[in-house]
């Protein structure tokens, strides 16, 4: 079963069709790189998979859950690293991480491990509002890591990272893939991203070119649609 399976997906931002009929398959253990110009719909594609943006038309399945009917269940299994940290300004780094971990039913130890892994130990007790941009990037990654998700969705994870953190990120992603987890990342830093990606798809004007895995480009039966 593919982790993500999307056919002719249309997603709207207001009245703008950010996704205009996207097809995408992602298999377990993939590290899929989404490349493409700004405004092509990469962010919306990731947010759609995460269930944050509703489908206007088309079909999308994540871990077999039909996003047209149920955008919630799949979320237990995935983590999204977006442009924002999804954290609370008045809480400290550690409190934010522990809240995210507890919400995903992970122990505090998972939060503390993520804290150390991304070298946030020194700022652990500082309020989120006082973090620098680079520290926020690392915190976003740490939140995703603390959730121990089976599907990692990353939106421009390489942007604004120093070389050390980039190496950590690459190690995390490669490690996740080797454990059978799945990674989808949208990136402009193609040199770094291509070094770790197992596949690349290009997002242009709301469509995904090469979004279907090579094995499935032949005419195939439509994905089984179990409509509840």
């Amino acid at each position, binding site marked *: 079963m593919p982790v993500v399976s999307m056919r002719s997906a*249309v997603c*709207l931002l*207001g*009245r*703008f*069709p950010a996704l*205009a*009929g996207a*097809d995408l398959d992602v298999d377990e253990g993939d590290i899929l790189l989404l490349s493409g110009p700004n405004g092509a719909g990469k962010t919306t594609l990731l947010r759609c998979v995460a269930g944050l943006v*509703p489908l*206007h038309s088309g079909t999308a399945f994540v871990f077999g859950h039909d996003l047209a009917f149920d955008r919630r269940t799949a979320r237990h299994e995935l983590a999204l690293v977006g442009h924002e940290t999804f954290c609370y300004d008045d809480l400290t780094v550690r409190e934010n991480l522990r809240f995210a971990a507890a919400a995903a039913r992970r122990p505090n130890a998972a939060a503390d491990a993520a804290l150390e892994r991304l070298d946030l130990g020194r700022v652990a007790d500082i309020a989120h509002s006082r973090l620098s941009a680079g520290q926020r990037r690392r915190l976003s990654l740490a939140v995703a890591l603390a959730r121990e998700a089976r599907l990692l969705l990353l939106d421009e994870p390489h942007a604004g990272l120093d070389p050390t953190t980039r190496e950590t990120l690459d190690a995390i992603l490669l490690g996740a893939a080797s454990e059978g987890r799945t990674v989808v990342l949208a990136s402009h830093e193609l040199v770094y991203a291509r070094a770790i990606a197992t596949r690349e798809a290009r997002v*242009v*004007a*709301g*469509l995904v070119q090469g979004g*279907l895995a090579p094995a499935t*480009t032949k005419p195939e039966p439509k994905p089984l649609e179990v409509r509840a």
Partner: protein
Amino acid sequence: MSRNARRVFGGVTLVLLAITAVLALWVSPADKEQGDAMRLLYLHVPTAWLAYLAFFVTALASALWLWPRTRSTTWDLLAGASAEVGVLFTGLMLMLGSLWGRPIWGTWWEWDARLTTTAVLFFLYLGYLALRRTADTSEQRGKRCAIAALIAFADVPIVHFSVNWWQTLHQTGTVFNPKLDVQIHGTMAVTLLLSVLSFTMLYVCLTLSRLRLAELEEGREQRELELAIAERIAAEHPEPAVTV
């Protein structure tokens, strides 16, 4: 309804409204106690009835929209159309109640249960209409508006009950409430009945027209959206995209 049926219905409504006006203003006699102010009753009663009917239709349409098997954009649009017409009638009802109360009760406003409940109703649905205006697309609008409409409707009996209770506990005897205690003369009853009927038909006309307007606008937006999708694809792919 077909175009002709709509026209006939609208025409009949207008004729009935005119007959109602003649009956209410000239034919029916003045009330013994209330004098000619009694004639306001012929407007006050139907507007009050329609305020409640309109919000009931809004609630019903919202429920039908929420129920997955009957979900259709039409229900959402009908809920909005009916609420808009309902707010119009509620506003008129409050105005008429006030104008009637002045000569009869001696005040512009009496904290009478019906008037107070209707005032709360007016603001509840003003809020609902404000909420409807905030959404960009019907998909975004649908759920929060439908739920808000149902909550507002469920609130009505509680408001009415508590205001009524407040009245009976604290103001017994102070409220002179002659509303339906008046001896209704035969002509008066006929006039009242006719006015309720003709105003209900007016409500149907207005709501259906408003619904039709909303549907036309929705259809235009849908076409614009399809155009936008096609343009977005065409802008980057001069050749038709080879879909795999």
